[in-house]
């Protein structure tokens, strides 16, 4: 029998049918996905096992699994339509992503930002940052973030100073952290330590801007510390003599202070003998 009796099967109808079926499947899939997206007010039943178990399942691909979950978490927490999206927030960042890759800094930073700014859970954010600090002892950004959160968020200045001190142990630390650290003691009410720290910055920096900023703080803190010292000495004088000193020099004569401090401009502090109060008549640079 000749070849003409067996014509070659025509491919076009088959290919067209295949393309048609593919298009139908694609449209159906896109429709279903759109319907799912429309009903995203309730969080999908999210179950992510602990990072410890995921690490086992990852077979050495834990860093890329951490990347994938981090990318997913950014999209998930950017979706404001999901009402209960903070339900697993700590689990996802602290127990899963950072467990899979404990040296991945971004999830600590972004996770703590979401916890603070979106979920209003600063202590949760600090727990996440504490884990990051423990896992990455040479890194300064994590303790800095924790310190900044304590400073600006929960106003716990002593705790902030401790975090900034941790950040300062890193050789790569940004110079601005020293200024935050020095100021936290002032905010916490420890003007003497703050003066010492600002004085150290003022003496050691070569940057004219930093030097000016440091001097402004040193100026005002010095006034504050000196006036506190004089106030305490006057109180001790009154307790010992039963009267107010007539002049500040009486404090030296009575052996209560070794010498009277000069104000930052090199002049003497004023004294009101009627009220028994030392005062500074110059102007404070920072006005506090």
């Amino acid at each position, binding site marked *: 029998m000749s070849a003409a009796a067996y014509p070659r099967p025509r491919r076009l109808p088959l290919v067209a049918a295949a393309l048609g079926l593919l298009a139908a499947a694609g449209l159906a899939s896109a429709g279903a996905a759109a319907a799912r997206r429309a009903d995203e007010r309730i969080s999908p039943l999210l179950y992510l096992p602990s990072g410890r178990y995921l690490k*086992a399942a990852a077979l*050495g691909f834990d*860093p890329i699994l951490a990347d994938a979950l981090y990318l997913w978490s950014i999209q998930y927490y950017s979706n404001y339509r999901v009402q209960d999206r903070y339900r697993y927030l700590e689990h996802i960042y602290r127990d899963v992503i950072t467990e899979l890759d404990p040296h991945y*800094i971004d999830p600590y930073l972004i996770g703590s930002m979401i916890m603070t700014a979106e979920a209003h859970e600063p202590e949760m954010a600090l727990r996440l940052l504490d884990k990051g600090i423990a896992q990455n002892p040479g890194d300064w950004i994590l303790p800095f973030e924790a310190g900044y959160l304590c400073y600006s968020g929960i106003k716990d200045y002593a705790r902030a100073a401790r975090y900034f001190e941790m950040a300062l142990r890193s050789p790569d630390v940004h110079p601005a952290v020293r200024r935050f650290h020095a100021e936290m003691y002032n905010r916490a009410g420890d003007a003497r330590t703050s003066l010492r720290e600002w004085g150290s910055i003022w003496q050691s920096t070569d940057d004219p801007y930093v030097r000016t900023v440091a001097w402004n703080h040193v100026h005002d803190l010095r006034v504050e510390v000196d006036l506190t010292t004089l106030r305490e000495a006057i109180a001790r004088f009154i307790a010992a003599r039963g009267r107010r000193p007539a002049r500040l020099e009486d404090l030296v004569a009575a052996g209560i202070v070794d010498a009277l401090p000069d104000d930052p401009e090199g002049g003497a502090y004023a004294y009101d003998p009627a009220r028994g109060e030392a005062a500074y008549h110059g102007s404070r640079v920072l006005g506090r």
Partner: protein
Amino acid sequence: MPGRILAIALNTFREAIRNRILYLLLVFAVALILCAQAVSLMTVGSEEKIIKDFGLATIDIFGVLTSVLLGIGLVSREIERRTVYVLLAKPIHRAEFVLGKYFGLVLTLLVNTAVMTAWFFGVLLAKGIADIGLAKAIVLLFLQFLLITALAILFSCMSNPIVSCILTLALYVIGHLLWSFDLLKARLPSAAARAVCTVLQAVLPNLSHFDVKGQVVHGLPVGGGEMAFAFGYLALYGAAVLLLACAVFQRREMQ
């Protein structure tokens, strides 16, 4: 390397580079490394880490797949097609045949890994984030491929490609899970059971020695001792597996 082993190795290499699977895997790997750039755009923070993780994971996955998919058929397919008779009729020791096949695939993997690495570093250079420290991870991944290839050849000497593939992939999975024996031992009350776990830990291939991907991406140090240990472990374990493969192939009946 004796001439006969070299001849078989070069022939195996020529055969492997004609295999479409190799090119398919390579194209996928190259495309995936390129995709890393697009994926990294979705992140908040360092894109560099995502690109590096993606690239190293791609080299790892596709290197392992190449080792397994080419390795499992190296010996068994020769037996199936009866082409092995032509070779064994010549004055060639069976062990030389197995070793030649192994080194041929090692050469293929070397070329394959070099292409993926060059492409990966090209992408990193284009982004201005190239880091020579990543090469340590790729060297160790290559050692892992060599060990997996040895295992694939061992199973290829014993059985058909499907069974070889399952067994090799099972050992790959186990090789990355050996640390979990420590968790198991902590929960086992019986000393004998714990001893069995210890023996299994020692006998099964520990592929975690070849995995420093996470370390190099974060710029953490990978010591010379760590590298030397991986080389030594491969030399001992790989040689043991190849000797076993030779022994199995020597006793194998050819009909």
